[in-house]
């Protein structure tokens, strides 16, 4: 089930370090994109013409260059500049003063800001990595995908800010010594719907700016106010905000709206939207009625929309797409029995590049032996509800999968069978969509506790074994895991919720072993956690300074009553009634990845709350930001959880973010339909 329950559902009580200056040399491109050589040409022999790519005559003309078609290489509207790492011998054949190389050099000077360390500041290794993945980049006036390889600092260009999922910003202007002086820069209220006269107050000006699209009739009202439950992107001084059916572009200086896009829906579960992705000047988001939509970031005008999943089968999409090179990756959601999948789309055309099903779909597929039947597997769920993370060195896109279905009446899935690859951390080759490894964190889940929480990539020491590339995840089921991210090798399991009681212990693989008596019972089984889980979609954060993973945590109990005695079970989330009986507390848990131990916990002081803790951000200013369960936005000391600053803004509904605007560090947070930014003056 979607991890949006946290803020909106009654049935719940409420988830790489890069080298310095990677890949700056590849940021050089005119509007429309440029192309880097595909995989395999890094050796220094860039062919004169690469496949079908040609220099668009207009692009060349705009540069004052003759259109030398045979020398050029680029997708639609752009031209191609090889990175310097491969330029050395590759363009010897380029004739005349307007050789491709000179064009590229010119573009570099004109459009690409020099890295602080100068051209030699880049990591050569990173360049080769990028080449090897066949990246194409996008327009210089938009977001170059190569920028996503940078350590998180000046902007917030993707769901987690960067590919690591650490939500650790290198910014230090706001730090422990001055955070007490943090003050409001601006606050803005978002108005959804088709504009004035529609849903919400609106205004003539807002209506004029609203671009309307969608396949629905326009007569469906969505209950509930606009709520931001995902990432806000900050690129080139603009903020891009989403809620189901709505996208807004705001000026990061003062929050004023530049455009608003509204999608007329056919229906689908409108529980939340985790944000947009950007590639060049193109924005991408998904809709509850299963469309993958691309907008122009400058105007909000729609470029195209594609059907991403069948609405007839009751899919609904909530995830934030991820830009990785020339892939836009996004996953499905559905509460009915259906197969989950991850898709990669072409950024220009929206054509599907690959699709990875998280459950076996055909005879002979791996994992089929862990299901009662092929029919069970094909209806087995495993939806990748949230964006994953990416390791450019191994080309692995690593993400979590959702719970198996039927969620509660699990016998039709095969009693005790693992039901691969649901509730697992899965690593795919980003170019092919092929699985490299998996590790299942909840074999045969029976509580609708997905393992889709965005994982976190960490490079560091592991018990004296030297530098290790790892992936960390704190799962909704209450267990924490450290894995080797090259191989999926299990390193650590621990229980980060003290109350969780659904498992007998751990098996030899470090997986929790389900206690069937804690599935549910006709007379009720008292289970911790309640359906919302020990943690949920609100993202964790990791600080390399403290080497701690910070996890929003809730400790809850619920009675799970089996309400369907038909031996064939129920569909989807049916077959049980779950009634909460108590919240023991909501926390931030600080977990040591080497041991799995919780080093400290901050318990939010409250009585009887049913809320889970919102997501987190940490910074090189030695700060940890997050909302509490009582409407405060708080800065903590990441070393010990002590409170350093707070302000009351109403219930926080997403994870904080930070970036620079005109030399000033801003911190952004959402509370329902309100956005707030804070800075020092």
């Amino acid at each position: 089930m979607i991890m949006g329950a946290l803020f909106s559902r009654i049935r719940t009580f409420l988830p790489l370090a890069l080298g310095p200056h990677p890949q700056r040399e590849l940021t050089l491109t005119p509007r429309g994109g440029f192309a880097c050589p595909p995989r395999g040409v890094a050796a220094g022999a860039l062919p004169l013409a690469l496949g079908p790519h040609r220099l668009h005559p207009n692009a060349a003309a705009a540069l004052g260059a003759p259109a030398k078609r045979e020398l050029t290489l680029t997708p639609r509207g752009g031209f191609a500049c090889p990175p310097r790492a491969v330029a050395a011998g590759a363009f010897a054949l380029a004739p005349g003063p307007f050789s491709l190389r000179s064009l590229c050099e010119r573009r570099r000077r004109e459009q690409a800001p020099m890295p602080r360390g100068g051209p030699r500041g880049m990591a050569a290794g990173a360049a080769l990595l990028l080449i090897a993945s066949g990246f194409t980049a996008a327009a210089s006036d938009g977001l170059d995908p190569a920028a996503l390889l940078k350590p998180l600092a000046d902007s917030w260009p993707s769901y987690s800010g960067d590919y690591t999922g650490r939500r650790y910003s290198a910014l230090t202007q706001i730090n422990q010594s001055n955070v007490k002086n943090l003050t409001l820069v601006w606050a803005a209220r978002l108005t959804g719907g088709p504009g004035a006269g529609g849903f919400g107050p609106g205004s003539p000006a807002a209506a004029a700016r609203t671009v309307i699209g969608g396949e629905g009739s326009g007569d469906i009202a969505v209950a509930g106010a606009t709520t931001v439950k995902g990432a806000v992107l900050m690129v080139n001084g603009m903020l891009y905000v989403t809620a189901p059916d709505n996208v807004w572009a705001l000026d990061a200086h003062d929050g004023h709206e530049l455009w608003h896009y509204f999608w007329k829906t056919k229906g689908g579960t409108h529980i939340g939207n985790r944000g947009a992705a950007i590639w060049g000047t193109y924005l991408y988001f998904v809709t509850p009625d299963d469309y993958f939509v691309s907008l122009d970031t400058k105007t909000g005008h729609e470029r195209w929309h594609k059907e991403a999943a069948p609405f007839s089968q009751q899919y609904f999409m909530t995830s934030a797409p991820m830009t990785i090179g020339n892939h836009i990756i996004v996953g499905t959601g559905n509460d009915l029995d259906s197969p989950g999948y991850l898709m990669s789309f072409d950024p220009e055309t929206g054509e599907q590049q690959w699709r990875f099903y998280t459950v076996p779909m055909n005879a002979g597929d791996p994992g089929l032996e862990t299901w009662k039947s092929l029919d069970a597997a094909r209806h087995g769920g495993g939806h990748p509800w949230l964006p994953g993370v990416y390791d450019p060195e191994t080309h692995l896109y690593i993400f979590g999968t959702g719970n198996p279905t039927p969620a509660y009446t699990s016998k039709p899935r095969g009693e005790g069978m693992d039901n691969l690859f649901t509730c697992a951390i899965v690593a795919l080759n980003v170019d092919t969509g092929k699985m490299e490894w998996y590790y299942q964190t909840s074999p045969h889940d029976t509580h609708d506790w997905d393992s889709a929480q965005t994982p976190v990539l960490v490079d560091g020491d592991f018990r004296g074994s030297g530098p290790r590339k790892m992936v960390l995840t704190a799962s909704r089921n209450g267990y924490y895991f450290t894995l080797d991210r090259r191989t999926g090798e299990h390193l650590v399991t621990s229980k980060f919720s003290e109350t969780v009681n659904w498992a007998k212990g751990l098996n030899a693989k470090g997986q929790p072993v389900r206690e069937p008596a804690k599935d549910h019972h006709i007379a009720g089984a008292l289970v911790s956690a309640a359906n919302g889980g020990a943690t949920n979609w609100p993202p964790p954060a990791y600080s390399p300074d403290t080497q701690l993973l910070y996890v929003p945590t809730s400790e809850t109990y619920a009675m799970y009553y089996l309400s369907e005695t038909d031996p064939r079970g129920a569909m989807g989330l049916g077959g049980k009634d779950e009634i909460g009986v108590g919240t023991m507390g909501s926390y931030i848990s600080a977990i040591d990845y080497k041991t799995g131990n919780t080093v400290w916990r901050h318990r939010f002081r409250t009585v009887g709350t049913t809320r889970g803790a919102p997501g987190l951000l940490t910074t090189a200013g030695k700060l940890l930001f997050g909302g509490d369960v009582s409407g405060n936005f708080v800065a903590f000391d990441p070393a010990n959880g002590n409170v350093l600053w707070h302000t009351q803004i109403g219930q926080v509904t997403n994870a904080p973010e930070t970036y620079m605007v005109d030399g000033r560090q801003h911190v952004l947070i959402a509370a329902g339909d309100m956005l707030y930014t804070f800075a020092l003056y």
Partner: protein
Amino acid sequence: MASTLHAQPAQPPGGRGRGAITSPRNAYPDRAPADPAAIERGKALYGVNCQFCHGADTRGGDGGPSLLRSSTVLDDQNGELIAPIVRSGRPGMPKFTLGDDQIKDVAAFVHSFRAAGYDEARLRPPSIIVGDSKAGEAFFNARCASCHSTTGDLRGLASRIPDERLLQQTWLMPGSGGSRGGPPPVTLPPIMVTVTLPSGEMVAGKLDRLDDFTVSLITADGTHRSFRTNGNTPRVDVRDPLQPHRDLLGVYTDADIHNVTAFLVTLK
């Protein structure tokens, strides 16, 4: 009271308009209602040809998978996707000789069942009482009797809360289990708080609100007072009358819970 217990309220009849999405439960449009005569004809054909394997309710039967969640059936509008499978068969499924109109009728019947991720229970257990009331009484006397009495505050409890599940939820955590459509069957005593100021002055009252930064309370004379807190200053002592119930959640076995409920239902 019983109605407040049903976590999944009955669905409104099919064919409703698309006015508003108020919950995930009505996020998908119902199919337009088919001609009842067609559904009846389809039911008869289905009963003869399909039911043995796919079940009378299309949820699967002796060997055949559920049709209700089948992607083919969900995508099908009027038999057009079902027809090729019916006519050609599949591995493990014979082919059937049915005319176009007959297949449309079968499709109308199959589509008359509602597929939903929030599947409604069809065979509800009649009772949740499975425990041993003697063992429940012993547990009660050991763990509950210091605060509660079967001849005092709990006298006639099962008459006041005749619904078994609501009774169980209520003794586990008073106030829980009644959230859907009905008031909780008990009145909860207030949470009390005492704030001890640095001067030594103590201010006590009913807790209004508490977080890491502020404590608010209502004193006996009705005055609302708030205090900014900084760490443990001023000192805040909360007395939550439900805390013993919370503390017991980590103690019970499920058998304890079932036994205590079996005992408490005898308190008519």
